[in-house]
């Protein structure tokens, strides 16, 4: 296995970790917060 094979596997691995992190975080947010609150933004409102 040469360096580029390792690089390819590393790329797959890092991509999988990042995507997994996003999905797990999104699921935990959905559990922790009320849906009405998460979708409560309104366009044009000044905050």
């Amino acid at each position, binding site marked *: 296995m040469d360096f580029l094979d390792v690089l390819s596997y590393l790329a*797959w691995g890092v991509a999988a970790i990042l995507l997994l992190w996003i999905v797990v975080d999104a699921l935990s947010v959905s559990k922790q917060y009320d849906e009405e609150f998460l979708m409560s933004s309104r366009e044009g409102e000044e905050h």
Partner: protein
Amino acid sequence: MSTTVAGEANKQRISMLKVLNPFHIWALGVGIVLVGEFMGWNFSVAKGGAYGSLIACWVIGLLYTCVAMIDSEVTSTVAAAGGQYTQAKHIIGPLMAFNVGLYLVMAYTMLAAADALVVGDLMTSGAAVMGHPGLDPKPFVVLTIAFLAWLNYRGVFMTLTLNFVITLIAFVSILVLFIAVDPLHQGAVLQHQALLTDLPYGWIGVIASLQFGMWYYLGIEGTCQAAEEVRSAGRAIPLGTMGGMITLLVAASLTWFICSGLIPWQYLGQATTPLYDAASLLGNTKLQLLLFIATMFAAIASANGCINDASRAWFSLGRDRYMPVFFGAIHPRYRTPYRSIIFLVPIAVAFAFTGLLDQVITFSILSGLLGYTFMSFNMVKFRKMWPLGSIHRGYIHPFHPLPAITLFILCSATYFATFLGYGSSLLSIMAFYIVASIWFTLRRYKFVKRADQFTMPWPRPKGY
């Protein structure tokens, strides 16, 4: 976590963070586009020769200047995510808004896929140069999309700050190359007198080259998507967009000047990475490396901006229930449209895995062109419904209605140019949007809460 209290007591509302400044807007617009200077624009040379490409560069530059002026005025007033979708919703109506929203999502998602493909191909080329041919580009395509999606998920400030840095490096690399070719001494390095020819296919070739002239600027209108996240939309959007347009006009002209003076038009029209090829011809390894890195950065910046914009457009469609309201959610900590970002990842990867860069880009360009055509009508209606003085505008574009009329004429010419080269693609894309419109009218519009979607504190429009 900071939230805001709006309306009735105890009713907390969440919103996107207003943290962006004009430099971020510049980075978003130029970041999406600049990859077009490193590749793609040169196909216009194959259609119309080197001079034909230059004419396309400036004619399409005029088209995009009109786009930038119109966008700056409307967005400095309609300061909401969704950009042109939100403009269409307020000014034209729901069916137009749905279509424009779809143009935006398709254009940016496909462009992000194409950019990731470019990153993968560059990795393969780089490995081949280092003596390791046959590197599979797929893991790097997926890693590009995954990393940028993760970055976008974590917050807009860091996302666009990174875009600013890598876009600036890519732009500076063009300036460095321009200085390296010794532009003041014609014949020393540049050979324009020997290489420039008459129009090889006449004026019809020039018209045909308009389609690829769009690569010089495609995506600058994406600055509008950040309208809900800037500190001051009235200041940041016009400054960032118009500054970006000036940057692109300079970059496009320099790119044409460098490449047409070094590479014969017959080769230039088919080159994959013309600026990198131009640097290679100079025989300077450091310059070659700089242009390789800059090409990579430009592709990453473009994909980054596209993920940002596609997710904002999809989020806005969800928030107004034009698409499932589930996508209208904002992350309580990072304040990003996180569900929209996640949803578009597999779609971008799927487009990228088709490997059909040509078709993906053509669909993206045509979706953009449909959006620009709408803007000309939109602007005329906007000024009629809310004349100057009736609402606050952060920026007022000059010579109205001349830019709107010019935009419409140039869009029509570009449709004709596209029909000459990609007639079947044009017709199939039109058919796709017609079918989508029928679906929206018959099946989706009933879910839209009509009163809730108009939230701008504007007076009743003139004539209503």
